[in-house]
């Protein structure tokens, strides 16, 4: 059994700055930073914020949470003497977690620029500060490795479960449908019972479709086995079973993405980027037409997902999971992770376009034929 590492985030105690260190550092940095106060439940750092500041927690307690499938999952307690935002302080990347005060919190906040000033004016002090922060960060990195190992264990379990569902449960659903089919043969014109049976059949079929989707999502090794093209097509094909108020036509155009040596991790991220964009359009955009295009040549990959739906205004984009556009930031992080760029362009009432590039050269000088397939949802 693997245990849920998230159940008890406090179990892994990390090194903290002692009271003396806090006093010393706030003294060093007095001219470069600000003291801040937060009430309980107040947001100290928001997910997606682009700031380069680091916070020393002088007193109080805070909780670090990350978004997983639209929910905030606590991953760490931050206690007195601890630091917040050490990674963004170094790499200026958007925040990948949010931090909520769980008691009243007193912080000392320094941004990167102010710290650079300290480095110039008093390199000795800056070095002392940064090496202490590095120790805390090193501890946190080690802990992430432990999380990864636990995640790997869970992943193996998920795959095993998916295989069991696939072999056993789905076969038995087929057997149930056969039995129901036989039952129907024995009804001599009893229409009420026949209707009940039809209803049962559609319920079981629905369960079967859901299971298939689940197995595909949980046993997500499919991509490395059948390739990106096949996985995307299977995803679109599965969407056809989706109930949409009006028919939605998805056109998928690509040029044989599985030829030319696309690295596995890029393929996986690209799949998730396309999947997320299409689901956004299907679930939130009320679109009639969604055009998906992925073209790959020696220059790199250009992908786009365009819909003719309701669109949204830029000010609507929010990072909270409750809002439908939460996936957008994820999309951006994924694209950037593989060295690419992505733009999300939308005007209210005029649809949304997700357009991006990934600079990875195709290993061929030939022109690869382009293929388009259409899928219709909610027929």
């Amino acid at each position, binding site marked *: 059994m693997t245990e849920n590492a998230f159940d008890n985030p406090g179990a892994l105690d990390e090194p903290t700055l002692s009271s003396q260190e806090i006093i010393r550092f706030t003294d060093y940095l007095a001219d470069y930073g600000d003291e801040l106060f937060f009430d309980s439940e107040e947001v100290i750092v928001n997910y997606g914020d682009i700031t380069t500041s680091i916070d020393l927690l002088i007193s109080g307690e805070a909780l670090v949470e990350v978004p997983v499938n639209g929910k905030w999952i606590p991953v760490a307690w931050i206690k007195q003497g601890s630091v917040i935002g050490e990674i963004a302080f170094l790499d200026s990347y958007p925040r990948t977690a949010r931090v909520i005060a769980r008691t009243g919190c007193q912080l000392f906040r320094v941004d990167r620029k102010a710290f650079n000033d300290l480095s110039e004016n008093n390199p000795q002090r800056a070095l002392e500060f940064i090496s202490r922060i590095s120790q805390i960060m090193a501890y946190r990195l080690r802990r992430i490795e432990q999380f990864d190992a636990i995640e790997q264990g869970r992943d193996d379990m998920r795959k095993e479960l998916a295989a069991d569902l696939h072999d056993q449960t789905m076969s038995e659903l087929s*057997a149930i449908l*056969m*039995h129901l*089919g*036989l039952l129907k*043969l024995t009804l001599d014109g009893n229409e009420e019972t026949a209707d009940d049976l039809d209803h049962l059949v559609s319920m079981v079929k629905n369960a079967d479709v859901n299971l298939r989707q689940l197995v595909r999502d949980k046993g997500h090794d499919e991509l490395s086995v059948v390739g990106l093209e096949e996985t995307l097509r299977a995803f679109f094909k599965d969407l056809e079973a989706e109930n949409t108020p009006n028919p939605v036509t998805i056109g998928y155009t690509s040029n044989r993405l599985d030829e030319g040596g696309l690295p596995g991790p890029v393929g996986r991220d690209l799949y998730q980027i396309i999947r997320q964009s299409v689901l956004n359009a299907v679930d939130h955009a009320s679109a009639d037409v969604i055009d998906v295009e992925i073209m790959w040549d020696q220059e790199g990959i250009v992908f786009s997902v365009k819909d003719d739906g309701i669109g949204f205004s830029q000010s609507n984009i929010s990072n909270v999971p409750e809002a439908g556009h939460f996936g957008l930031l994820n999309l951006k992080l994924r694209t950037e992770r593989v060295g690419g760029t992505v733009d999300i362009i939308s005007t209210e009432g005029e649809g949304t376009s997700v357009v991006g590039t990934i600079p990875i050269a195709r290993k061929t000088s030939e022109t690869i034929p382009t293929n388009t397939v259409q899928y219709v949802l909610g027929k």
Partner: protein
Amino acid sequence: MANILIADDSPFIRTAYKRVLETQADFVVASVCEDGLEAVNQCSELQIDVAVLDIRMPRLDGISASKTIREKNPEISVVVVSAYDDWSYVKDLIETDSKAKAYILKNSLDDIGELIRVVRKVMQGHLILDNALIEKLVGYYERHSAGTGNLSDRELQVISRGCRGMTVQEIATDMEISPEGVETIQDLIEEKLEISGDDYLSIQSNSTKAFLNLCVSLSLE
């Protein structure tokens, strides 16, 4: 009368197959087995015409069982029922000979008529592949066929129906064209795809043979 053997490790599924097959007056379920080894032994002991085998079974899997059964009793038709739309299994099943064999996905059997249809077809000597698998094969073909003679949509439609075990007449009716029209398309396919030496498909038309040969030679995973 056809004597049928069923092998599946789930009692629930065994009962379902048995009851479906027994709706047919000319079918007799002569043996019900829990694994592949039992199926192999029963096929040697009893007069079996068709063996319906689950792909995943304890002791001996369905593909291995079908091979042993055919080595010992070449006249027995086999239907392999699988949860995997995976070409490598099909390849394994038909590599030595493809006469009177079927590879069907479990969820295709939701419709009770399908198992009956497949059993009847294999008894006539046909090779039957599941629809989902044919779709996948055609998809693979479209993406891997550069330089091997590109087939038109219409030609692929004829091939798909051939892989399902349809006769020229049935294909003609289904596509709303004349039988002669079907034959003309089949000739075109044969011209485009060279038939390789190992002629292991015995019943299907040459055009279907050529297509499946090509898919084997492309060594699709």
